[in-house]
């Protein structure tokens, strides 16, 4: 995310800054947008990165609205932290907090999942049978990980015993995944990495864990006995061409084997083999360690609701929102935030941060009888870790343009320590500030 890491450098650095800044703050306080009075009933589905943040923002902007947030999970997961957990740099607890900790006072939190959604009659029904009528609906359920799509795989297999890593599955699985990686980088063998063929959250994450594994093996002095193989789902290593070339170059430099158009479809944990679908038919390979990232789809309740695209991503079910306003194409009182959106790019927390002001603007404007003006340009960012201590801060938009936050200062395609600081130090703080509606 784009901001402060230069300033995080030392305690004194920021102490001085903050002290100086306070004087400024005193003078520039009251730039807050005006509150709008309304009796609108707003339902938010999902209290993750997007849901919690928009709840806080709307509470700030709206006076008298009846806001209900629906999420059956009591734990909030800071998912960008999973990568650090899976590389042994943080404990599982680093990525866990309470969902309720982030919700504003005065909101009605229904601690159940949505089971049914009818956008024709504007009603959500929860798993406990509660019926919630709404005037406006915000869909921020994130996505589901389709583990069953990988034949032979089961989450109970994750860990050093079988050499299986699945850090997407959650904080505890990320920690168990680290133990598998730790053992692999001790004992050596063949390590398999890769990504699914569906859209996915944080498309850089499978590459990051591969780079981190290679770096950890090198640091341990065991690089010689470890092979690293990265299986890309497409004829490239990253969807943005200029980033693809840079990743390929680094993989060449570090002797990481990469294969194009290899999509994991089955594993045999006993025989330690993996089967990949390729344009030339299936291939089966041996591994000693494998990082599994499964296909990703919209939750079933969303796919059943009629909000999904009818002719795009039909096996995945992302919702049909306008790619700039994030408003639903057929149900104008429905908005999408985060991973659930059927837009060409941007399943990251960094994108959520840019979805928020857009949805807030269009929703609040409509309630106030105006028309919203903010547009989302596809901004996505991914601190692409290349080793412990270094990363590339790649940021791009719908057009595959690089959109660096600090042009001329932080080069996006250079492996830098400052970009590592972004991920390691600044990202979680920025994410938390975003959840509170303050960033």
């Amino acid at each position, binding site marked *: *995310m*784009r*901001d*402060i890491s*230069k*300033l*995080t*450098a*030392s*305690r*004194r*650095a*920021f*102490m*001085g800054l*903050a*002290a100086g*800044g*306070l004087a*400024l*703050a005193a003078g*520039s306080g009251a730039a807050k947008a005006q509150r709008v009075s309304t009796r609108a009933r707003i339902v938010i589905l999902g209290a993750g990165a997007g849901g919690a943040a928009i709840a806080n923002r709307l509470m700030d902007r709206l006076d008298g609205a009846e806001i209900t947030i629906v999420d059956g999970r009591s734990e909030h997961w800071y998912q960008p932290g999973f990568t650090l957990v899976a590389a042994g*740099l943080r404990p599982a607890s680093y990525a866990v907090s309470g969902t309720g900790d982030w919700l504003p006072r005065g909101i009605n939190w229904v601690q159940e999942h949505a089971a049914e959604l009818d956008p024709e009659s504007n009603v959500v029904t929860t798993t406990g049978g509660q019926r919630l009528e709404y005037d406006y609906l915000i869909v921020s359920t994130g996505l589901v990980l389709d583990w069953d799509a990988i034949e032979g795989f089961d989450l109970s297999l994750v860990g050093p015993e079988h050499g299986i890593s699945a850090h997407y599955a959650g904080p505890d699985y990320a920690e168990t995944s680290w133990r598998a990686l730790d053992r692999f980088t001790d004992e050596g063998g063949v390590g398999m990495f890769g990504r699914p063929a569906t859209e996915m959250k944080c498309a850089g994450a499978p590459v990051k864990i591969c780079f981190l594994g290679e770096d950890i093996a090198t640091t341990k002095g065991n690089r010689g006995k470890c092979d690293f193989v990265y299986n890309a789902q497409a004829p490239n290593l990253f969807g943005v061409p200029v980033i693809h070339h840079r990743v390929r170059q680094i993989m060449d430099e570090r002797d990481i084997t990469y294969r194009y158009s290899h999509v994991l479809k089955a594993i045999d944990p006993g025989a330690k083999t993996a089967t990949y679908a390729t344009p030339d038919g299936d291939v089966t390979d041996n591994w000693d360690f494998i990082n599994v990232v499964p296909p990703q789809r919209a939750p079933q309740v969303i796919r059943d609701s009629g909000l999904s695209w009818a002719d795009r991503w039909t096996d995945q079910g992302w919702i049909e929102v306008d790619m700039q306003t994030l408003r639903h194409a057929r149900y104008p009182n429905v908005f999408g935030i985060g991973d659930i959106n059927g837009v060409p790019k941007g399943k990251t927390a960094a994108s959520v*941060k*840019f979805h928020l*002001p857009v949805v807030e603007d269009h929703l609040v404007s409509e309630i106030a009888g105006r028309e919203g003006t903010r547009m989302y340009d596809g901004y996505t960012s991914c601190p692409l870790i290349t*080793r*412990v*201590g*270094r990363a590339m801060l790649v940021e791009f938009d719908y057009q595959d343009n690089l959109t660096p*936050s600090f042009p001329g*200062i*932080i*080069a996006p395609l*250079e*492996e*830098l*320590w*400052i970009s*590592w*600081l972004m991920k*390691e*130090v*600044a990202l*979680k*703080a*920025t994410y*938390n*500030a975003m959840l*509170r509606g*303050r*960033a």
Partner: protein
Amino acid sequence: MEEFSLSTMIAVFEEMFGAWLFWAMVAVAVAITLAWIYVLVRDRALSFRKYLVAQLSMPFGAVAAVWFVMWITNSTLADIGGPIDWIVLLGVAVLGAIGLAILVYVVQSLMRGRQSEA
């Protein structure tokens, strides 16, 4: 950052350290700076002996600040990549040096009280 502002920055720092620790550190920084201004005004001069001792502490402040930042961020000096990394690291060192120097100066002044120079 979409809307980059001072309040955003303060929010991020509050999250990073916890609101309490953050403002406590700000208060300490402000207090030390005020104490420094206070002894300067009180003595109506920069004491060169104290200034010399303070200067001698600067390398320690620089090294300590760099070490602290490396430790906190799981990094080593080998990770320093491009020019911006060197600039940031230098900034850390300079701030560590100045910070410690001011602290040492203030502590000397306050401990010994007002003294005439030899």
